[in-house]
């Protein structure tokens, strides 16, 4: 089971390579001293969450999200190279999970626009233009916050957006923990560069 979209893609690619290239497979098996299981399943955390949502697992959580308006942000998580186009598609899994947790996902146009990744460091202007377009679109859609599955997206959206385009960005693990017991963790909220307290205060004791 994998929580990071980037790792999920890389591991998927490694699995594809090991299954299609015997020479490389031999080298890797020799290196690790054990055979590779070709039918190994790679599960993204959100696939499990979507399954749990369907089975009603989240119905009675004490911290349910009370209609929090959420912009689900995938970044490049839905895109993959042509050779991997048979991998399961994750489109809609964040929305499904957020709905099951009691949130209210909005429809918006930038949910799968790349965050700029490393250009945030080496070409900050390119990244900030992009991030501001993403943030503006989220605000226009009426979202109170953005939820992402990727730590890199989380960082870029926070550090590269202009002060007038700010809504809080949550990693999905924070939203899960909030929904579980309704007690936002101070320790984690303090790590945000865009203060999520005003948005949370409207519904929870922060």
């Amino acid at each position, binding site marked *: 089971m994998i929580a990071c979209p980037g790792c999920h893609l890389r591991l998927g690619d490694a699995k594809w390579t090991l299954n299609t290239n015997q020479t490389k497979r031999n080298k890797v098996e020799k290196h690790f001293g054990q055979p590779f299981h070709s039918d190994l399943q790679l599960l993204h955390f959100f696939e499990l969450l979507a399954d749990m949502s369907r089975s009603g697992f989240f119905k009675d959580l004490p911290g349910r999200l009370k209609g929090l308006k959420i912009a689900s942000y995938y970044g490049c998580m*839905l895109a*993959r*190279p042509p050779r991997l186009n048979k991998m399961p598609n994750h489109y809609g899994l964040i929305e499904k999970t957020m709905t099951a947790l009691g949130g209210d996902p909005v429809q918006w146009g930038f949910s799968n626009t*790349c965050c700029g*990744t490393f*250009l945030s460091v*080496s070409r900050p202007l390119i990244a900030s233009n992009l991030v501001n377009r993403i943030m503006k679109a989220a605000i226009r859609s009426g979202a109170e916050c953005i939820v992402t599955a990727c730590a890199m997206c989380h960082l870029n959206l926070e*550090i590269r957006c202009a002060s007038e385009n700010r809504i809080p960005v949550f990693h999905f693990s924070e939203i899960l923990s909030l929904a579980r017991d309704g007690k936002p963790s101070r320790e984690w909220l*303090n790590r945000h560069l865009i203060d999520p307290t005003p948005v949370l205060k409207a519904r929870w004791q922060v």
Partner: protein
Amino acid sequence: MDTIKLTPASGNFVQTVQEKSRSDLSRCWHCLCCSGGCPFAKDMDFLPNVIIRMVQMGLKEKVLTSSAIWLCVGCNTCSMECPNAVDMAAMMDTLRRMAIEEKVKIAEPAVLSFHQKVIDSISRYGRTHKLEIMMRYKLSEKDFFSDMDLGLRMLSRRKLDLMPSKVKNKQQIQALFKLAEDLS
């Protein structure tokens, strides 16, 4: 307008790129779907599909010294748009490797420098130590002041750690680097 002289040797470049990237560029019909979808196309000197055409015409030096190949982040957005399953990200990756191997002038040295700092950090600790990566990157770029306030805010919010978190078995990490080299 420049005239492009095609010779029998012009085809060598596209052949090499296709073999290394395992992508069939002759499938491209220049519909521009990739360039329309690429979030970075407007910052590139040549659009992604134009790079394909230039590769096909054997314009090796122009391609390898372009900024486009370094501004491509490999997000695969273009592949979701392409009706012909052209593996653009793999082609761009191949072109970056060739640019390094052939020691041409790199159009976006800061991009390459940052990649190198990240790889160095992983080979040193087995993980990335973001603060050190940023300090080393800033040193090499002689850019000390941009993002200074951001760095301080991140430190104070504990988004950056002062000390690196290290993998215990360093030999294993080195062996993985060796394996990766052997496989590529």
